[in-house]
């Protein structure tokens, strides 16, 4: 695999940051876009644009086809059973809100339990918090262990006959832990509890196979998969989509409308209200093709290699503390440096063109547990190299020098 060639497909790397080449290590936040994705969007607007699904003229037909082809591509890519199980949302956050709101409305009552984990991103907690408030439900947090993982036994311990849903991340955006989703789903199935997986970090880094995972819901964001902003995806088993009420109301998601009665069509139409993110969805088809051309397994392998190289070097540095040490780890490294606040680290690294993120990464519960308000985080993408890790380590040395003065 020729990483230089792959990297050359991303125009952003032609730019200098503070006069230095860009070392982009903020991929868990959002990834950069290859030219083919950018060009696909431009081409769509320049040659094919129209609103989809509404008009019968030629442009509308083309646009609708391109849009729906992406749904087919996604279906195939994640191995869903049918295209109706793929719903386009604004982002993963909206996808989780959609489930929490509709499932919560219909199936969660006073005293019922929602089981999530201490690793969850706010996007997989706040939507459930709203249901807790509305319904008088209870949220239980599965503990994360010292390695930064959530173990199956912890889940087992917390399931009761009041547990109505489990919401869990596939890959922690802080510790990088890859959670045993399949085991959790198998366990949940014996109790008839649906499982929602927050796949934001899983989708860009792991092979996705809904039949193998077996989960009921899987939410992810296209912008973290070398795709456009403005699109997320909710995969949901058809049986749920048939049962759950609609979410947002508006044009395009109705069957028949009268002054006193309204009927709704099946999924995905029922969940796609208003004008959709046409250009973004079409653009995303090129992201999937980009990933498929490289092969997700190759991406995983490459990222793992680079991460392990980086981790090893970082661990040599006594002042650096890595957050979590999971057995199965995606390419995300959160760390602190003794005596230097992550915000200062990020600023100093940026001066050398190294883009990392500092903060709580929308995981305050986890940071409270670890006992820090913020961490620094380097998260990898396909274009990162061992050299980038060297840059990172050198820049960290520089931090120390500045602060040791």
């Amino acid at each position: 695999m020729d990483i230089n060639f792959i990297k050359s497909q991303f125009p952003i790397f032609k730019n200098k940051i503070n006069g230095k080449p860009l070392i982009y290590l903020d991929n868990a936040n959002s990834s950069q876009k290859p030219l083919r994705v950018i060009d696909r969007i431009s081409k769509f607007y320049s040659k094919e644009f129209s609103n989809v699904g509404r008009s019968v003229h030629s442009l509308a037909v083309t646009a609708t086809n391109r849009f729906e082809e992406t749904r087919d591509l996604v279906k195939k890519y994640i191995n869903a059973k049918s295209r109706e199980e793929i719903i386009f949302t604004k982002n993963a956050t909206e996808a989780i809100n959609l489930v929490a709101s509709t499932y919560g409305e219909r199936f969660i009552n006073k005293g019922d339990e929602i089981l999530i984990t201490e690793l969850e991103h706010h996007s997989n907690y706040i939507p459930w918090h709203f249901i807790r408030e509305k319904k008088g439900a209870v949220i239980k947090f599965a503990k994360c262990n010292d390695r930064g993982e959530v173990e199956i036994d912890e889940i087992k311990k917390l399931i009761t006959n009041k547990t109505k849903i489990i919401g869990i991340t596939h890959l922690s955006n802080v510790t990088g832990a890859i959670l045993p989703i399949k085991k959790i789903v198998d366990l949940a199935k014996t109790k008839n509890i649906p499982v929602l997986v927050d796949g934001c970090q899983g989708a860009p880094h792991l092979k996705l196979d809904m039949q193998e995972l077996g989960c009921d819901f899987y939410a992810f964001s296209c912008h973290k998969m070398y795709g456009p902003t403005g699109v997320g995806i909710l995969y949901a088993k058809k049986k749920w989509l048939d049962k759950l009420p609609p979410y947002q109301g508006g044009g395009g998601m109705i069957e028949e409308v009268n002054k006193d009665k309204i009927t709704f069509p099946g999924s995905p139409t029922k969940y796609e209200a208003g004008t959709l993110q046409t250009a973004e969805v079409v653009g995303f088809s090129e992201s999937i093709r980009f990933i498929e051309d490289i092969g997700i397994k190759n991406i995983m392998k490459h990222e793992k290699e680079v991460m392990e190289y980086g981790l090893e070097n970082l661990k040599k540095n006594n002042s650096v503390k890595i957050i979590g040490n999971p057995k199965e780890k995606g390419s995300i490294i959160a760390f602190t440096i003794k005596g230097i606040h992550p915000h200062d680290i990020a600023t100093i690294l940026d001066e050398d063109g190294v883009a990392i993120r500092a903060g709580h990464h929308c995981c305050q519960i986890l940071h409270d547990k670890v006992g820090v308000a913020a961490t620094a985080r380097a998260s990898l993408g396909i274009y990162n190299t061992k050299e980038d890790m060297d840059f990172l380590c050198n820049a960290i040395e520089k931090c120390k020098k500045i602060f040791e003065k």
Partner: protein
Amino acid sequence: MELKELYQEIILDHGKNPRNKGKCDKFNKDAKAYNPLCGDKVHIYLKLNKEKKVENLSFEGEGCAISLASASILTDIIKGKDFITAKKITNEFLNMIKDKTSVSNDILNEDQKTTIMSLSGVKKFPMRVKCATMVWHTFISALEGKNINE
């Protein structure tokens, strides 16, 4: 080099050894603030006496070098000033960060001016401005807020 302007020795010193940390004696006003983006927290405690003088002033907080230094510098300089002067200095500081290049307040001595101006390096780092300013806004909230015992 801009980084050097940001992390001047004064700042690093105040950041590492912040003055006036903890709850000060007999404070009668306080206010806190939180920056959800990075998790920085600050809590200002102050004692305003009958003559409207800031008799005592301190802070608790967590945050980056810039935010700790800013809190430390604030408490150091404002302590002992009267209500009006304290507000004047705060405004001078906020204006300096916003658009001016220096502070012109004649209540400050040269040393204090240099200290305050050491924070002006954040101007070149827009995402860090709030690190420097949050504590000043919080101070004003405390100063203008209700007495705790009222």
